[in-house]
C-alpha cells in the first residue's frame, strides 16, 4: 500500500483529464464594420478587410486527473481565451482539445441571474446552465440556501440583494455542480479576503474529492498556494509548463523583462541585479501570506548582484486591491524619509538580504508589495517587480478606513472653568 506521502505514479495508459494539442486562435475584427443590410446593399463591394491578431499560438499542454492546474499570464496573454476554448465557448482555429470526464466552466459567478426573479428561480436557471438537470437543480435549492445562509431572503427579488448576498448565492450554486473537470476563471476577484479564502477552501475540498481543476489567474500567490502545476502564457504562446513554484518565478522574471506599462519613464532598467527571492514574514520570522492586523510585518527581499556595486538602494511599495499606493519605504537615505545606513559593497554573485519591518497598521484586506532596486543616488534601477509578493491582513472590524492607527483615547469630565458658559 503506498504511503500517503509518496507521489503516486500515473499508469502510462491512463488518460489525462484535459489534453490541449497545438491550439491556435486568431481574433479578426472587421476594419470597417458593416452593421446594417442597408450599408451592405449600398456598398456591396466595400472591402471586407479584417484586422486579425493572434490570441493563442500553438498552445499544447495536458492536465492530469486530480490536478489543480493554473493558467497564468499577464493581462492579454491569452489565458482567458484559452479557458474559453477548453470550455467550448470559443472555437479554436486549429489544434484539438480533448477531455476525459464531464466538464463545467465558471467564467463568471451567477451566469443567467435575473434581478427581477427571487432566489429559487435564479438558482434553478443558473444550476441548469451549469449543467444540472432540472430535477437535480430543484433538489439542490435547499443546500444552496443553507450554504449561502440566505433563507430569510428567500422571497426577495435578486435586485434587492446586496452584492455580498448575490455572490454568496452564486457561489453556493456553483458548489452544487458535480463535474469531473472544473474550469475556473478569476471569479474570485470578487469579494473580500475572507470570501476568497472560503472559495479556495471549497476548491481544495473538490480537488480532494478527486476533481480536476483548471484555474486562470494572474496572482502568483494563489498559484503557489493551490496549484500543483501551471502553464505560463505570454502573448498567446506557452512560455513554460512546470510546477507552481517554478512557474511563479518565471512569471516574475517575465514581468521584469517585459516593459511594463506603469514603469516610470525616466528610469531605465540597467539590469545589474535580480530579485532572487522575496516574502512576507510575521513576528516569529515565519514566511506567511496572511497575518493579523496590528502585528509586526516584515518584508524580506534577496537581491543578487551581477556585478560589483556600492550602496544599492531597495524600495518597497504597498498597494491595496484598488491599486492605491499606501506606503513607500526605501533604503535610500532621505528618499522618502529617514533611511538606514548605506548597504555597503557587494561583489558579483553576492546576495543582499533586505528586511523592512513595521507594525502592520493596514486595515483588513489584500495588499501587494512591489520591490525595486537601483544603484546609489540614481533614478535608474536594476529592476522593478510589481506584485512581487502579496499579503492578506486579517482583522475583524471593518471600518472602511485604510489604516488602523493604534490610538490612545483619553476621556475625562471637563471641569467647568470660571468663564465657561459665558458668551465669547
Amino acid at each position, binding site marked *: 500500500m503506498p504511503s500517503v506521502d509518496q507521489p503516486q505514479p500515473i499508469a502510462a495508459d491512463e488518460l*489525462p483529464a484535459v489534453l490541449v494539442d497545438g491550439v491556435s486562435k486568431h481574433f479578426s475584427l472587421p476594419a470597417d464594420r458593416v452593421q446594417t443590410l442597408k450599408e*451592405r446593399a449600398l456598398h456591396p463591394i466595400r472591402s471586407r478587410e479584417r484586422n486579425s491578431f493572434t490570441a493563442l499560438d500553438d498552445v499544447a499542454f*495536458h492536465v492530469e486527473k486530480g490536478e489543480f492546474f493554473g493558467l497564468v499570464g499577464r493581462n492579454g496573454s491569452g489565458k482567458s481565451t484559452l479557458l474559453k476554448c477548453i470550455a467550448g465557448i470559443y472555437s479554436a482555429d486549429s489544434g484539438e482539445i480533448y477531455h476525459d470526464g464531464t466538464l463545467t466552466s465558471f467564467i463568471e459567478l451567477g451566469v443567467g441571474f435575473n434581478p427581477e426573479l427571487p432566489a429559487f428561480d435564479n438558482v*434553478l436557471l443558473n444550476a441548469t446552465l451549469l449543467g444540472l438537470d432540472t430535477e437535480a437543480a430543484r433538489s439542490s435549492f435547499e443546500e444552496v440556501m443553507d450554504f449561502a445562509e440566505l433563507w430569510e431572503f428567500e422571497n426577495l427579488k435578486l435586485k434587492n440583494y446586496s452584492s455580498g448576498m448575490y455572490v454568496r448565492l452564486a457561489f453556493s450554486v456553483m458548489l452544487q455542480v458535480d463535474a469531473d473537470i472544473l474550469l475556473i476563471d478569476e471569479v474570485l476577484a470578487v469579494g473580500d479576503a475572507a470570501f476568497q479564502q472560503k472559495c479556495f477552501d471549497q476548491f481544495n475540498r473538490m480537488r480532494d474529492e478527486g476533481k480536476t481543476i483548471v484555474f486562470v489567474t494572474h496572482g502568483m500567490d494563489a498559484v503557489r498556494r493551490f496549484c500543483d502545476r501551471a502553464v505560463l502564457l505570454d502573448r498567446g504562446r506557452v512560455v513554460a509548463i512546470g510546477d507552481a513554484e517554478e512557474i511563479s518565478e518565471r512569471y516574475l522574471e517575465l514581468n521584469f523583462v517585459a516593459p511594463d506599462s506603469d514603469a516610470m519613464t525616466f528610469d531605465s532598467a540597467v539590469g545589474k541585479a535580480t530579485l532572487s527571492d522575496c516574502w512576507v514574514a510575521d513576528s516569529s520570522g515565519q514566511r506567511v*501570506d496572511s497575518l493579523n492586523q496590528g502585528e509586526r510585518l516584515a518584508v524580506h527581499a534577496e537581491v543578487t548582484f551581477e556585478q560589483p556595486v556600492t550602496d544599492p538602494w531597495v524600495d518597497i511599495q504597498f498597494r491595496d486591491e484598488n491599486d492605491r499606493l499606501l506606503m513607500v519605504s526605501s533604503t535610500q537615505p532621505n528618499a522618502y524619509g529617514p533611511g538606514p545606513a548605506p548597504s555597503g559593497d557587494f561583489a558579483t554573485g553576492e546576495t543582499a538580504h533586505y528586511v523592512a519591518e513595521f507594525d502592520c497598521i493596514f486595515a483588513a484586506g489584500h495588499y501587494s508589495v512591489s520591490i525595486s532596486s537601483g544603484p546609489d543616488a540614481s533614478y535608474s534601477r536594476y529592476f522593478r517587480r510589481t506584485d512581487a509578493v502579496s499579503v492578506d491582513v486579517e482583522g475583524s472590524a471593518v471600518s472602511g478606513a485604510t489604516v488602523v492607527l493604534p490610538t490612545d483615547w483619553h476621556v475625562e469630565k471637563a471641569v467647568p472653568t470660571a468663564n465657561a458658559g459665558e458668551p465669547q
Partner: protein
Amino acid sequence: MIGAAKEMSRPVARDLGREEYSELAVRMPVRVVGPRAMSGDFRRFLTLTWMLAYLEFKLKFFGSVLGYAWQLMKPLMMFAVLYFVFTEVIRIGGGVPYYPVVLLSGIVLFGFFSESTVGAITSVVEREGLIRKISFPIVSVPISTVTSVFLTLMLNYLVVLSFALASGVTPTWRWVQIGPLLVLLYIAAASASLALSSLYVRFRDVKPIWEVIAQVLFYATPVIYTIEFVQEKSATLAQVMMCNPLATILQQMRHSAIDPASPSAVDALGGWLYLAIPMGIVVLMALFGFFSMRRLAPNLAEEL
C-alpha cells in the same frame, strides 16, 4: 501558510511530448468542438429552452400586479377596436357567421406570430451575457422566446374558445385539430425566429424591416376580412394569398374550431396538392433558420 493547501499527496504529472499527445488524442473520449447551434445533447437543449421560456413567462405574468390580465388586454383591446370598425363603420364582417369569434381568433393567433418573432429578433444579442460566459445551445435562445409567448397563446386560446362557446359555436370532432394547428403555428414562428435572430447579429436593421413585414402580413392574412371576401373579387388572388402559411393555419382554424361551413384550408387553396406550398415555406424557413444559426454559432461569442 504557504503550501498548507497542498499537503495532501498529489499525483506527479507525466512528462509527455507532442508525439505522445497525438497517441493519447486518439483515445480521449471527448473532443471539444467549440460552440455549435446545438451544443450539448438534445436533452440539455430541451431543459434549457424550457427553463428560459418558463422564467420569461413567469416574469411577464408576475412582473406586474395584474399579470395575465395585461397579457390578455392587448388582443382584447385590438379586438374591440377592429370589431367596432369592421362591423359598424366598414361593414366587412356584417354577413360573416360568428364574425366576432373569427376576428378574435385571428387576432390572437396572428398576435402570437408577430409578438414572438419580433421579440425573438433581438434575443440572441440580448442574451450575450450567457453566450459569452457559458457553453450552451444558442438555438435555445430564440426558441425559448417563442415558447414563452406560446404559453400565453395557449391561455389566450382558451379564452377564445370560451368566447366561441358563449357566442353559440357548437364544438365538433374537428376541435381535435386545434392542438396540431397551434403547434404548426409555433413551428412557423420558431423557424422565422431562428432566421431573424441570427441575421440580426450582423444586420441591425433586420428589426425595423421585419416589423414592417409583419404589418404587411397582418393585412395579407385573412384576419379582419375573410377569404370568401377575396374569392368574390378574384379566385386566383385568394389562392395566392392562401399560400401564406399564416393564412393556411388561420383559415383551417376557422374551419375546424369556429365555422365548419367556411372553406377549409385545402378547399381555399384549391386542392391537397397546393397545401405543399405553405408547408414547404415553413420547412424552408426552418431549414434556413437552422443553417444560419449553425453558420453563426462557432464565432458568435466573439462577434457579440
